[in-house]
């Protein structure tokens, strides 16, 4: 996995336990828009680097017929999602 840190648009499911579950996300490149469905969430961690809380999701999806593992990050203070590593 490589760090890409791309801001993304996300549809997430907020469960009663307070943890959001990303369902699908969209990467807006210059002219193309790619929607990726999150097939499986493998691990959920929280980090608090620099005192800034983020939830880190390690997920897996089928992208162009290849199974890929990647990391999404949700920044609690700004409610922004980023595709952190892929």
């Amino acid at each position, binding site marked *: 996995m490589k760090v890409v*840190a791309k801001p993304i648009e996300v549809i997430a499911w907020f469960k009663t336990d307070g943890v959001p579950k990303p369902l699908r996300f969209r990467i807006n490149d210059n002219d193309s828009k790619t929607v990726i469905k999150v097939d499986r969430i493998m691990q959920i961690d929280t*980090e*608090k*680097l*620099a*005192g800034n809380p983020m939830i880190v999701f390690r997920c897996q999806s089928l992208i162009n017929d290849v199974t890929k593992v990647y990391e999404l990050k949700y920044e609690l203070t700004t409610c922004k999602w*980023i595709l*952190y590593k892929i």
Partner: protein
Amino acid sequence: MNDRLIFHIDVNSAYLSWEATYRKQHGEKVDLREIPSVVGGDEESRHGIVLAKSVSAKKYNIKTGETLYEARQKCPEIVIVPPRYWLYIQCSNAFNEILNEYTPKIQRFSIDESFLDFTGMQNLYPDYMNIAFTIKERIKKELGLTVNIGISNNKLLAKIASDFKKPDRVHTLFPWEIKEKMWPLPVEDLFMVGRATLPKLNKLNIFTIGDLAQYDLEILKSFLKSHGVLIWDYANGIDDSPVRKSNHIEMKGLGNSTTIPFDVEDKKTAHLILLSLTETVAARLRNSHNCCRVVSVSIRDTNFINYSHQRRLYCPTDCTNIIAEASYKLFNESWKGAPIRHLGIHLTELCTNEFYQYSLFDKNSIEKLRSIDKTIDEIRIKYGSKSVQRSSFLHSGIRNMTGGVGEEDYPVMTSLL
């Protein structure tokens, strides 16, 4: 008092580490700590000095406080990042939250350092080295920062110990280690020995902390007065100040000042800047429930010549208008005509604002002034400092309130342990 156990925890190049971790968290590939980099103010508005530097910037002999221009001359490829005070406050809070899990007795000494009191906790933490390493590693893992921990049985020695070798270390400096670890250090490493005291000490043939500790106290007293006694005590590791819950000590005065982005050449603009400083400082004065009796104005001109002028008011006051008027008068009396770079207002001789002494010669109704001040303060607290402003600031290019770092609750440095 000798069986106290005090930790001093200090974040290594705090501003820079926080900025670097924040950037890494957002996916930046280079770590600012590993390249020559500094956190620096905005050069456009003439706040261009080095606020913090990385270890590799230190190798180029870049010093905190020098101008970014000098820094660039020493190292042309240096990376300069702007300061983000909200981030520092957030980091500092997270840092103290972790410390709070270990002991309730914490003193936040400044934004990046705290004293922890572990006195009488031998049963809970049998090995103090162990706990120090646990704290250090936890902060590194959770917050991504390296810290230095100094351990001793008073605050002064703990603080000096944490300054020994950086980064990411634990040091002890107990009284029996003073001779060996502290005395060979140059005297300017001692807390409260700064650039004003240093030449005086050098003149007395004092170059190391050991020299100072063994010096005749009476001679020192005659040269440096009470400050001499203080630093002599410190050189001998004597300090019994408690770990205070808050840094709040009875305030003797308060002030705000600002470096102006342009040179001020006329009275009108200078008055406007004084007014905007007064708005800040008077609001702080009222917030502390005090009135002031002495107003002082300080001026720094473009030749870096500083001077100030002060006056006692007939009656103590907390009204923005009255303080502003006094500051205009002081300014008019003292300004020598050279273009101005920096202006400041300081208020001293504080007394409670529970009651207010009227005078026969008050121009306006004090009651009215105080009630409008109170209302404006409340509006600004609720809706922000820009919600109400005087019309004289419109289109003037000057902010309606200046002074301070622009963030509230910023724990500032203090010279008192």
